[in-house]
């Protein structure tokens, strides 16, 4: 904080743009406490669940487990792996997410690059055609009937194809192409006799790595987290993604529990520990990779904020 000291001795401007007076005020403490409490609301629930998932059944039933596990054992996780259906779902979901992301980036680039070229004849009409679905959707039932006619219901591809083209992501990519890749680079390549494909592949793509990373993550996280289309279009258990599996596990349990007010009588400890383990099983991968990917998301929001 000592660097960037400017002007009066009591004032400083941090490198990231935040300003402060050197003296530590009460307001500083209040803000730190406030932010810390908000952060705790994001951490503690997961700590509690994690503890529950590795605690002894009796301790959980006696409601003794708060933030630290009691009688540590990994039985719940063992049974998740032995049962195998959640593990299978996890692998299947990773596969679907990968396919979705690759195809999504492909279709996104195919739309964004041509539309970023001012010289393209018919550009405004084509842009309108490709953006309009973002503002007006036919809705669930007409879409459902189309997917039915295409024989996509209860098919893995229904989780991939309908959503790979995203007008929103296309817009972000188009904006990036227009604002971050100098026209002169491409022009000189054209003068050297390069084709549109060559320019895209050899000049534009290597310069677009940050946006490719960001949008791939948007695609991947979007697909990984969504379950509504599983609920609408999928019947077979083997084709359901892991979020929907978890939904069914937890939702069916809570429905049963909330229906009978004498909850404690109906519940044995095992389902609760199992449920906690299942939630953790689905959450841990996200929490593990999230801190490393976060900065790419932030970049994406910034680019998305300055639409062209």
């Amino acid at each position, binding site marked *: 904080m000592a660097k960037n000291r400017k002007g009066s001795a009591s*004032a400083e*401007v941090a490198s990231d743009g935040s300003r402060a007076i050197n003296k530590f005020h009460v307001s500083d403490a209040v803000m730190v406490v406030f932010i810390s409490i908000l952060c705790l609301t994001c951490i503690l629930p997961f700590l509690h669940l994690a503890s529950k998932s590795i605690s002894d059944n009796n301790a959980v039933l006696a409601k003794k487990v*708060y933030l630290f596990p009691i009688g540590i054992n990994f039985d719940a996780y063992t049974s998740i792996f032995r049962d195998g259906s959640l593990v299978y779902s996890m692998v299947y979901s990773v596969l679907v997410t990968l396919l979705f992301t690759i195809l999504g980036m492909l279709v996104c680039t195919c739309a964004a690059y*041509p539309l970023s070229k001012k010289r393209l004849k018919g550009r405004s009409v084509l842009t309108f055609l490709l953006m309009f679905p973002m503002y007006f959707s036919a809705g*669930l*039932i*007409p*879409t459902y009937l189309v997917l039915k006619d295409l024989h996509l219901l209860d098919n893995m591809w229904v989780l991939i194809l309908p959503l790979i083209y995203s007008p929103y992501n296309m817009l972000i990519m188009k904006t990036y192409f227009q604002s971050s890749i100098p026209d002169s680079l491409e022009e000189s390549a054209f003068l050297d006799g390069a084709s549109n494909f060559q320019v895209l592949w050899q000049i534009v793509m290597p310069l677009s790595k940050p946006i490719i990373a960001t949008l791939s993550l948007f695609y991947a996280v979007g697909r990984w987290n969504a379950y509504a289309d599983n609920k609408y279009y999928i019947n077979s258990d083997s084709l359901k993604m892991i979020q929907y599996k978890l939904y069914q596990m937890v939702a069916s349990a809570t429905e049963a529990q909330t229906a009978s007010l004498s909850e404690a009588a109906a519940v044995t400890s095992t389902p609760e520990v199992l449920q906690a383990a299942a939630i953790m099983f689905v959450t841990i991968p996200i929490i593990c990779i999230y801190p490393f990917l976060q900065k790419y998301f932030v970049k994406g929001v910034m680019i998305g904020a300055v639409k062209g």
Partner: protein
Amino acid sequence: MSSWKKKKTSSAIQDITWKAAFKRDWQLYLLLLFPLVMVVIFSYAAYPGLRMVFMNYKPARGFDGSKWVGMKIFIKVFKDADFLRALRNSIVFNLLDLAVGFPMPIILALILNELRFPRFKKVTQTILYLPHFLSWVIIGSVAYTMFRPSSGLVNNLLTGAGIIADGIPFLTEKWHWAVTYLLIGVWQSMGWGSIIYLAAITGINGELYEAAMIDGANRWQRMKNITLPGIKGTVVTLLIMNLGRIMGSNFERLDVFGNTQVKEFQYQLAIYIYEKGLGNGAFSQSAAVGLFQSLVGLALVILADRVAKMLGEDGLI
């Protein structure tokens, strides 16, 4: 003025015959074929299906076998108590979401901007963005383990400390549910929402702050007179954009927090469309409500765009 000029020059560049354009840019048109095919199949192909809102559509009979009934479906829908309830809930809860959820990211951004310790700031930001990356299924599951009346952590702590005798039905009584639902929504989106305001704050000229400090302005004065006016444009644009979404609803967020005890409030348009349509097979009715939602949404977005431009902000479309 500038956009007019831009249009002029770009049309000059495009001023060649289609034949010449194809000859020069056929590869670009070829690339566009892929996304165009996708939107035609998965978006545009669904539009003709909307004619079912003027029919008594029966899945077994298809479009050819179902009868045209004019506006009857719409009349039925607008007299349907379920629809009116869903419409009321959607509007009320979206407005409440806006009232509770909109200021929070701004406050958070202002505070994060004032934080003194860069490392603390970085770590807390990372933590606060996290809920945005968790699915509603995970958030819903976690919420249930936190707020269940007799075994949820929060109720355990409160009853254990002797503050309350019985568990609070956070998610199983409609008024409690409304508050919990709204607060979880705020919690999920506040960190992420603050990014855009932090970016706007970074764009404010640092010399303004220096000048203010030399003049002896304290933190609150600087916040009120420099930071807030500096992000006003962003605030207005986002507010208008959010007002344009007042008819939308997030099916997954409603669905994971749904249960029979809170149906009265949880029953919103997205739930209506799903339950009437795919649940009960009332396709025409569901599609009519979907169309209503889309049209009102479209009108609101266009209106919001106009208003934003009138106020001198960037448009949304």
